[in-house]
């Protein structure tokens, strides 16, 4: 089993005719994902790599029974694309786009609270259930099937940790990048809750970074609600306050909230060992299993 996506997930790619959308739709198909449609305004009736394109998400759902979307739409139009997914009542919308204005995301967030659609991202690498389905830009070849769940704010850091796991024969049930922006859909807690409920996930890796208080809240959730063991990693120990470290969300405020130390302390308090290096994270997972 797995969480959020599997063999049956039927995907519509929003922005499939753009450079990135086209490339990654091809990569997803190659991995075995059911990419059933594309949605691009004004491009209805075309085909991309044999995938039919529709003008709206609504039409794509109607014609192809899509139940999830992946969004490769430039920042200026991305919030609109997310609204389209939410208003079409898809089960899952994965927003890859980096650089969506925060005030746009505040409006999306409000709408999200009124729908049943799960939003992943934005500014995320997507989600993969190895051997079944991948929605996003994660390089499929580094993942392997197994029983370790992984949830992370960062894309390339996910790849690094997965590489360390795979090298030791520790495969993954599902790996999720929740995104590096200040306002995101699926949180650490949402993912952890799902992993806890998944009988085929026997250990979880959580990779956080500086900024906000999501990791602290996740730590409390782990302490109170999880039996599945969790190993942690926190990036940004050396980040100075007030500087945005690449991700819009990765910033330690002047008052000292969002520091790596506060996150590491909270995780340790919940019984979660935090690795000093990605290699040490893999050590902890190996001990769990």
């Amino acid at each position, binding site marked *: 089993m797995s969480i959020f996506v599997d063999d049956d997930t039927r995907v519509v790619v929003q922005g499939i005719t753009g450079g990135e959308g086209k490339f990654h739709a091809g990569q997803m198909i190659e991995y075995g994902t059911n990419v059933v449609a594309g949605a691009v305004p004004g491009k209805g009736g075309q085909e991309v790599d044999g995938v039919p394109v529709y003008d709206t998400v609504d039409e794509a759902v109607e014609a192809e029974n899509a139940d999830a979307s992946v969004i490769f739409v430039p920042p200026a139009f991305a919030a609109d694309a997310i609204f389209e997914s939410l208003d079409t009542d898809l089960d899952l919308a994965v927003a890859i786009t980096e650089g969506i204005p925060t005030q746009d995301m505040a409006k999306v967030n*409000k709408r999200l609270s009124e729908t049943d659609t799960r939003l992943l991202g934005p500014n995320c690498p997507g989600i993969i259930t190895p051997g079944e389905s991948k929605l996003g830009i994660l390089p499929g070849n580094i993942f392997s099937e197994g029983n370790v769940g992984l949830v992370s704010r960062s*894309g390339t850091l996910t790849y690094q940790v997965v590489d360390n796991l795979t090298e030791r024969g520790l495969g993954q049930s599902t790996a999720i990048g929740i995104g590096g922006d*200040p306002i995101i859909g699926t949180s650490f807690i949402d993912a952890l809750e799902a992993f806890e409920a998944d009988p085929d996930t026997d250990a979880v890796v959580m990779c956080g970074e500086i900024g906000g208080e999501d990791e602290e809240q996740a730590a409390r959730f782990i302490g109170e609600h999880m039996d599945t063991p969790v190993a942690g990693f926190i990036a940004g120990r050396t980040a100075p306050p007030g500087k*945005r470290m690449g991700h819009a969300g990765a910033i330690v405020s002047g008052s000292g909230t969002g520091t790596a130390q506060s996150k590491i302390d909270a995780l340790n308090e919940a019984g979660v060992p935090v690795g000093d290096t990605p290699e040490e994270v893999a050590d902890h997972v190996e001990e769990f299993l």
Partner: protein
Amino acid sequence: MKLHEHQAKSIFADAGIPVPDSRLATTVDEALDAVDEIGYPAAIKAQVHVGGRGKAGGIKIATDRDEAEQYAEEILGMDLKGYTVDQVLVEAGVDFVDELYVGVTMDRGEGKPVLMVSTEGGVDIEEVAEENPDAIAREHVDPAFGLHPYQARKVVYEAGVDADVALDVASILSTLYDLYEENDASEIEVNPVMITDDRDVVAADAVMNIDEDALFRQPDLAEMAEESYEDDLERKAGEYGFDYVRLSGNVGIIGNGAGLVMTTLDLVDYYGGAPANFLDIGGGAKAERVTQALDMVFSDENVDAVVFNIFGGITRGDEVAKGINEALEQFDEIPKKVVVRLAGTNAEEGMEILNTDLVEVEKTLEDAVQRAVQNAEEVTQ
């Protein structure tokens, strides 16, 4: 992106928020002309993006022309926490009887903007938040509806602002919220709002930060961002479009993806080195980006050694390797030792392409970082 105080105040003034009379000056003569027009007392305020300017000596109040000259000479050109002051704001002093704090920011946890008001203005608000959180009244705004005017009044009354000025303060707060929305601000703060003897309300300071991701639809503010760079390297990074942060160490770091670059910084520190910078070349970088990144790090005189760490997803190892070769082949002598680690997409092809006469190669992140730290140590010894 942070605006300077004088930039934020001109936006405030245009929106009808009362601010003290002021002039911008870049020389002592200009500063003196400004005080001659404004009168005394006059505040001389360094225009740099540094917190705690006052405590660090960047704000002085002049009561006559001699003092004004002395302070302008002191402050212009001074080094404030690593930044050189090249502009001062000369501003009419305000006689006040009370100071308030008002602000608008995004509450990440709630995903909503929040208004904040406190009667404990004029001091470090973060200290107030920590020691006496009840002294700050808060009101969340539904981003779909925007601000209802009653909300500004409610939070002002709740904070305990004097009744005779409460509506004036609420009106300023309401305008600040409009500015927050119109300008895609991430934060607007006025600390303090001064209440004068005559019960006038004046915005005596102004902090305004803009969401960098929204600059594409804020052309005027994007121009101000250009003026706001205070460091040649930061300016260069802006031109190249890199996410770049300068730090104080001597190990230069280049990588892809914010989380992994931060991790590389942390590992440099963990293995006993000191990171010189954060530089994320982003996803899908081609050879040219790689050359630009190396140029950035080589132009930082603090850098003694470099680690280049790429885990390719959409970024291809062979492209990166080509860029590294091209960049380094231009030099008769490599200015700083570069350790490269490539993993992920096309990493093996990349490793084969890399010219090992020019760079050192390591297979794991840990080994690459340790070697770069060692290289930096050898230079400083």
